[in-house]
């Protein structure tokens, strides 16, 4: 067991998988000589050379497309897109090629590509570098979308993703790269599906994914001081979605708050609410509450940015509302 940072966990997964399988390569802007904007591939360029750690030009559509194409003929590329905002340029190749080729080819062509990208607001990166597009990938059939909440999942899910024959989008978060967690020294894998109850409780369910699981945990601590026992559920995988675990938790607590960093319309929270309505409507003892970003482009101004993005207090207030206390 060693305390490992999120970026170190990703780096370790790259290293182990590249040693394990020569077909595993990494591509992205500044990932080679510079070691990656978030250090996720640091040192690997020296170890594996320019043929396997490929520095690409600032041309997301092209290199994502090259990686996706390479995966169709047997490579296992791990593509880093520096920010999920830039993934918009590569959407055609992700949505039209990666997500659909298995179906378009009648099952003959697989696309075992992994696309890693931080998707969240960091700190004053302004609207065009603060998008959180999880909902867009979540709504695309043919993709897997996972959101590791900490180093253990970041490592174990990346390793599973490399070996998975489907295209996997891993959404990380700028604010988590330095987060640390105890991690076993021996190799392990984490499943790409299935939600996880990270804290058990009986009075209310707080649902989160990615960074906002930590907001839920913070809110649960606050609620515990009020004598309220909150259950925290990490979705882990947005696609496929583990509706069964959500249902069981809601049937236990009868109240639910969903935390998402994105704006609310047609979002992750909307989808979870729909699932709850369809699966366990009559278990609800209060209206489900979404805690989400303000419906505005994320402001650059630090104070406005803080206001626009949910924090622990917002999740706590959402829970009090669901509990009928405000």
């Amino acid at each position, binding site marked *: *067991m060693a305390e490992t940072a999120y970026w170190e966990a990703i780096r370790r997964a790259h290293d182990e998988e590249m040693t394990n399988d020569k077909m595993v390569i990494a591509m992205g802007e500044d990932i080679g000589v510079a070691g990656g904007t978030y250090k996720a591939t640091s040192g690997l360029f020296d170890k594996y050379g320019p043929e396997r750690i490929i520095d690409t030009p600032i041309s997301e559509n092209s290199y994502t497309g090259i990686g996706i194409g390479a995966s169709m003929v047997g490579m296992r590329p791990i593509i880093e897109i520096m920010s999920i905002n830039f993934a918009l340029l590569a959407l055609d190749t992700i949505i039209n090629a990666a997500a659909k080729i298995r179906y378009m080819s009648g099952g003959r062509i697989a696309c075992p590509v992994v696309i890693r990208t931080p998707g969240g607001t960091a700190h004053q990166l302004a609207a065009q570098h603060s998008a959180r597009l999880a909902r867009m990938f979540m709504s695309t059939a043919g993709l897997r979308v996972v959101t590791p909440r900490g180093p253990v999942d970041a490592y174990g899910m990346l390793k599973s993703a490399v070996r998975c024959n489907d295209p996997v989008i891993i959404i990380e978060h700028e604010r988590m790269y330095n987060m640390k967690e105890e991690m*076993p020294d021996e190799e392990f894998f984490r499943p790409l599906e299935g939600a*996880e109850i990270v804290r058990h409780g009986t009075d209310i369910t707080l649902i989160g994914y990615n960074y906002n699981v930590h907001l839920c945990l913070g809110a649960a601590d606050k609620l*515990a*001081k*009020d*004598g309220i026992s909150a259950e925290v559920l990490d979705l882990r995988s947005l696609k496929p979605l583990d509706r069964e675990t959500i249902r069981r938790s809601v*049937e*236990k607590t*009868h109240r639910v708050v969903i935390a998402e960093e994105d704006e609310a319309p047609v979002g992750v929270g909307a989808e979870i609410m729909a699932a709850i309505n369809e699966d*366990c*409507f*009559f*278990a*609800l*003892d*209060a209206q489900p509450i979404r805690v989400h970003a303000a419906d505005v482009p994320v402001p650059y101004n630090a104070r406005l940015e803080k206001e626009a993005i949910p924090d622990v207090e917002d999740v706590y207030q959402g829970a009090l509302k669901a509990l*009928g206390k405000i």
Partner: protein
Amino acid sequence: MSDPYIIKMPQLSDTMTEGTIVSWEKNIGDFIERGTVVATVETDKAIMDVEVFREGYLSGPMAAVDSVIPVGDAIALLVASESEVVAADSAPVAASSGATEAETASEPAQPVDETPDEAHPVKMPQLSDTMTEGTMVTWEKEIGDHIARGTVVATVETDKAVMDVEVFREGYLSGPMAAVDSVIPVGEVIAYLVDDKSKIIKSERTAIAAGPKEEKPKSEPAGTPKAKTKIPAMPHGATPAPRPTTGQATPYARQLAGAHGIDLSSINGTGPGGVIVAADVLNKETQKTSIKRVFQVPGEGRPMSAMEKAVAHNMEYSLSMPLFRVTINVKPDALKAASKQAGASLTVAIAKAAAMGIKKHPSINAVYQHEDRIVEREQVDIGLAVETEGMGLVVPVLRNAAHRSLAELNADWADLVDRARKRRLKPEEYSNPTFTISNMGMMGVALFDAIPSPGTSAIFAISTAGPEGMPVTITADHRIVNGADAAKFLNTFKELVENPGWISGAAPAPKAVEKGESAIPAGDWDYDVVVIGGGPGGEDCARDLVQHGLKVAMINDAPFPGGECLWRGCIPSKAWRAGADRMRDRAHDARLGVKNTNKPELNWKKTRA
């Protein structure tokens, strides 16, 4: 000096997990005779007495009035002599509502089991909706074993089945460990996980006593209502009560009201904006519940197993049903032969026949709902009582038995029975039948009748076949089913059993084409397949079929195949766009040093061809 007897918080209702001390009826030092009421407690349903069935002197440490104590935890002690009596507040048995953290810390609790350092408690999980406690069946791992995430460390018996206890954390298993056969309330510690071998404690608890409570708030915050209404598990399958005539109710309040037969219009809501919430329904239910008077049987009873309890309580409900019985003799030989030929079990064939009969007499499938309502049900779900060897009764359910094929039902059944015998069924596989069959044909019984389970109106009791045939007795709820209904249903059932033509003639479910088997029915056809439409889809399809040796006719609305795509859609558009791009490029050729290309002309005719 003998060990004091611990007076524990009793479990006074099915759903009770903790109780609030309302009053102490006896004082410290009082001599207590067997059968004396020493205290009253408030449960999730009512205020009830705590009786003691042993004599002695009441002694502290004593749980304070208004404190909330989990079921099974100590509330006071009984000692053998007056000299051993200790004061009420000598050492708190459980953190009472008034106690501050400082007090608790300065006065260490009763000598209880030691707890390893920096340990993560492994708790009794809630493995079913209705589970409040579990019995330790086995330990799959031993103290000191290294546990990986996701390892099954123990199995426990719930009220429904034997299930695994998984641990989602890594470490070494450590004591104090709950003993096999001990009954542990949900949420109580059964063992510990430590991250270091040196911290392992090798001890076993013989019984769960007043152990330290983890993660229980030590003190209730000011302003918290002292008797918190405990919300019970989800009552699956109940029909939600209608909305109240005025105001609103939450979906869960409606579900609970439906399950308890409560009229929402008679309740005042206390939720936001006067909405009726689950707690309001439960308070109403509490008012309705009176304390049950019971006949106390002499002798030393043994506690019922969870499954025995569930059966006993279910059967008690049937007392509210006005039951009657009708018997018919059925000749089972034809059905026996037909089901054997079809490779299905006779039990399943009987279930299917009953389900088909119920479709013709739907009142059998309806059920009485409190108060004065009928729930009519479309789908027939047949529960079949199965005796699990030495472990009581389970009733796996064959869903939609009227409309699914015998083969499908048979496959389901084989799987269900197998797992029922091992008690590995999931709750949804044994809950909410709409009709039940109890078959004791193989047990040589002349005639018997059965009791419908809650949520159904009727049950079949099938006895051993004699010269007159096989006696089939229906026991039915007369509020829903008339004698004539029952008789007509029995006759339909008899007809179906004695003339099992429906088995071979039953509409086969659409099945996938097997390998090597043709999907084309035999006959004299001009073409094997006709493809309508000659676009890229139709054309490729027809070509593929021909390549597989079939004779294909393609019908198209144009002289040549290609369709919209080739003649009018994307393909010509892209060709024209490509042409346009090239012409645009010509304008820039000169700048790039390309000469004599600056007068492009479009040959429209050529482009279209």
